[in-house]
């Protein structure tokens, strides 16, 4: 226990009430940030749709995006306009919700470099935009951040932040905090040197760049500011790497950002360490597979916690960090809750990084437990990988994660529960020596997938993050790869890879309603109040992301690419094919 941690915790107690009101729905009718609010809860105060009437939901409108890539992320609703960002080529549509048929106000078609498609590891996805001060801000696959006038669609600025030739693309949704736009790169499979940047909202100029690993001067860690609960010292993110392996060690930032206005800290997860062969990068490899807390003003690192030291299994920690208050052991705590790819659900004190709860939310065998005293996992040595280990059998969860970071969970303060899409997959793993060739994959592993125990490949679960327990689950035939939303009507929505959009009773897990939306769902649903006063629910259909790579033959657009069905999920291509569609539902 560090004394610094205690001091910061007192600060949290004083200011916690202020945060509670700020984090939850600034404007309950709209959806202006990727995760709904700064706390990324994806909770809506709307309650017209309830467990009693959800069975009467019906589609009210659809729109084909004209794009086939995986439709991850979510639309935004600002006032009477809905904004949709497509996968590459990253078209921005603005629909007028106040008129029948929702005609377009504008569409913005950026000139995106097609070479980016070959540098994106896992389909040319985009996880959405953010709205702030009259601007729609989002990222282009080829490494640029753009701001577009929300009224006119006019391009206000465009800044190159990532370098394609170094293996960097951008797929994440930015967050605007005050006058700062926060962005990070994809490229954990391309030997990038991961970073987070802040841009000025008015001009688009880069204000600061913070590396996720390297010397303190590049990581923006100073002894005055950096007070981590489990780690102290200097150059931790340099000395925990063998040789100069940190220079191409990955740690991308392709997930979600959250922000605590009281502590003035932005939270983000870093991705896997590269290459997959861990023997080429001995050490903990800080701060890959970690959560970092930085000051948005100057980027200074305040604390960090590593979920998977010396990542042997591609366990990215890019999953959302949901901010709320929970009562743990009789004490009210301001927490950050994170469902890691490694299969553990972590509840941390978000002022200090102290680990409060860490329990497996899916079947886990790479580690026996996480030690709350040290914060470190107790790894099963039989499950360690690396070239010298040969083919290591039966590691759970597999590298798709217990939950995909691309599929954000939601949290209801009414039920006190988290609603989590999960995968039930395991893997074998064989690493080989990887050669770094700039701009090409830096991976070298053969990783066959297998089904997890129980005969189902996924489940949608409700999780109590105060005790670390599963409250209910809905088993699914295929991995659940959509995000979720939960409402004050106690209804939680999610989608499935075989193309169903479903509503569940948030308290009981009873399935209330389902509708076939065509292509598999890898996007995150939202809910909002339309100009007519009614509550609507919107979601993308459009299978893709990793499922574009691994699902076998789910593409029909390329006659020169025909694959057999995936051996671990041979039926999936039977139920779905690619194709982007926006769906809107109401009572």
């Amino acid at each position: 226990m560090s004394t610094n941690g205690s001091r910061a915790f007192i600060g949290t107690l004083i200011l916690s009430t202020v945060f509670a009101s700020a984090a939850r729905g600034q404007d309950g009718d709209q959806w202006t940030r990727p995760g709904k609010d700064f706390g990324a809860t994806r909770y809506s105060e709307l309650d017209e749709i309830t467990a009693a009437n959800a069975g009467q939901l019906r589609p009210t409108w659809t729109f084909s995006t004209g794009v086939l890539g995986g439709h991850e992320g979510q639309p935004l609703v600002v006032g009477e306009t809905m904004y949709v960002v497509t996968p590459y080529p990253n078209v921005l549509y603005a629909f007028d919700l106040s008129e029948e048929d929702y005609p377009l106000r504008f569409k913005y078609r950026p000139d995106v470099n097609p070479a980016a498609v070959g540098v994106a590891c896992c389909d040319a996805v985009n996880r959405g935009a953010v709205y702030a001060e009259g601007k729609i801000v989002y990222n282009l696959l080829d490494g640029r951040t753009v701001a577009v006038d929300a009224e006119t669609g006019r391009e206000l600025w465009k800044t190159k932040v990532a370098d394609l030739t170094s293996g960097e693309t951008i797929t994440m949704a930015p967050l605007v905090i005050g006058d700062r736009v926060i962005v990070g790169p994809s490229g954990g499979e391309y030997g990038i040197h991961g970073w987070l940047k802040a841009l000025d909202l008015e001009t688009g100029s880069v204000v600061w760049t913070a590396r996720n690993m390297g010397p303190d001067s590049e990581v923006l860690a100073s002894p005055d500011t950096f007070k981590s609960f489990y780690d102290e010292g200097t150059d931790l993110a340099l000395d925990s790497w063998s040789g100069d392996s940190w220079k191409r060690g990955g740690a991308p930032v392709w997930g979600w950002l959250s922000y605590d206005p009281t502590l003035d800290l932005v939270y983000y997860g870093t991705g896997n360490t590269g290459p997959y062969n861990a023997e080429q990068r001995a050490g903990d490899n800080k701060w890959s597979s970690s959560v970092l807390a930085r000051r948005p003003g100057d980027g200074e690192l305040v604390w960090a916690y590593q979920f998977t030291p010396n990542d042997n299994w591609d366990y990215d920690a890019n999953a959302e960090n949901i901010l709320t208050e929970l009562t743990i052991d009789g004490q009210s705590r301001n927490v950050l809750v994170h469902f890691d790819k490694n299969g553990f659900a972590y509840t941390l004190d978000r002022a200090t990084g102290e680990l409060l709860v860490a329990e497996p939310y899916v079947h886990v065998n790479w580690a026996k437990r996480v030690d709350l005293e040290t914060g470190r996992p107790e790894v099963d040595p039989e499950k360690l990988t690396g070239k010298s280990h040969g083919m290591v059998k039966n590691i759970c969860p597999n590298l798709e994660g217990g939950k995909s970071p691309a599929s954000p969970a939601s949290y209801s303060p009414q039920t006190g529960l988290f609603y989590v899409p999960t995968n039930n997959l395991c893997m074998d793993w064989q690493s080989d020596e990887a050669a770094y060739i700039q701009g090409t994959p830096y991976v070298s592993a053969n990783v066959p997938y297998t089904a997890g125990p129980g005969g189902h490949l996924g489940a949608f679960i409700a999780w109590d993050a105060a005790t670390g327990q599963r409250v209910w689950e809905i088993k699914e035939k295929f991995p659940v790869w959509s995000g979720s939303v939960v409402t004050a009507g106690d209804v939680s929505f999610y989608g499935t890879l075989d193309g169903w959009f479903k509503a569940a009773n948030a308290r009981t897990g009873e399935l209330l309603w389902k509708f076939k939306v065509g292509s598999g769902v890898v996007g995150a649903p939202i809910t909002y109040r339309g100009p007519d006063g009614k509550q609507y629910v919107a979601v993308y259909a459009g299978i893709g992301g990793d499922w574009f790579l691994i699902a076998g033959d789910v593409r029909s657009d390329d006659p020169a690419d025909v694959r057999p069905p995936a051996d671990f999920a041979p039926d999936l291509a039977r139920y779905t094919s690619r194709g982007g569609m926006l769906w809107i539902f109401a009572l």
Partner: protein
Amino acid sequence: MDLRALKPALAVALLALAACEGPGTAEPEAVPESRSAPLAVRYDQWGSAGNLAPPAEDLVNPFGEDASAAQQGEVLFGAMNCDGCHGGGGIGFVGPSLVDGRWRYGGEDGALFHSIFYGRARGMPAYGGILSDATVWQLVTYVRSQPVPDSVPTVRWP
């Protein structure tokens, strides 16, 4: 833009041109050494402007079907990160399958050499300059040594 979409239109235009000029003119004349633009490069066996063979078309793999060259190529396929996009064994991942017997840009020796050496616009990096000619040919030998199904247009579930 997908170049292949243009091909049928181009082919029709070329046929029309040939018809106008009468018999015997469909055969293109030798291109003078002095022309400023490089020879047209066609991406598959149909529709190449002027019906000129791309420079790589006539290249012949010096290794032929040599098994040890194919084996070297297999090692390179992992070592040079080809499997990072095309999947282990070339079964397809973020990049297309190389073992389905179907080709965006042609599956002959010269076309494969071209794809690896110069890259392709939809994401294939150019390895010319990183790999020697001989090394590229080893990769070509490996890819061509992979068993390819005769035709797999139908997937059927029981």
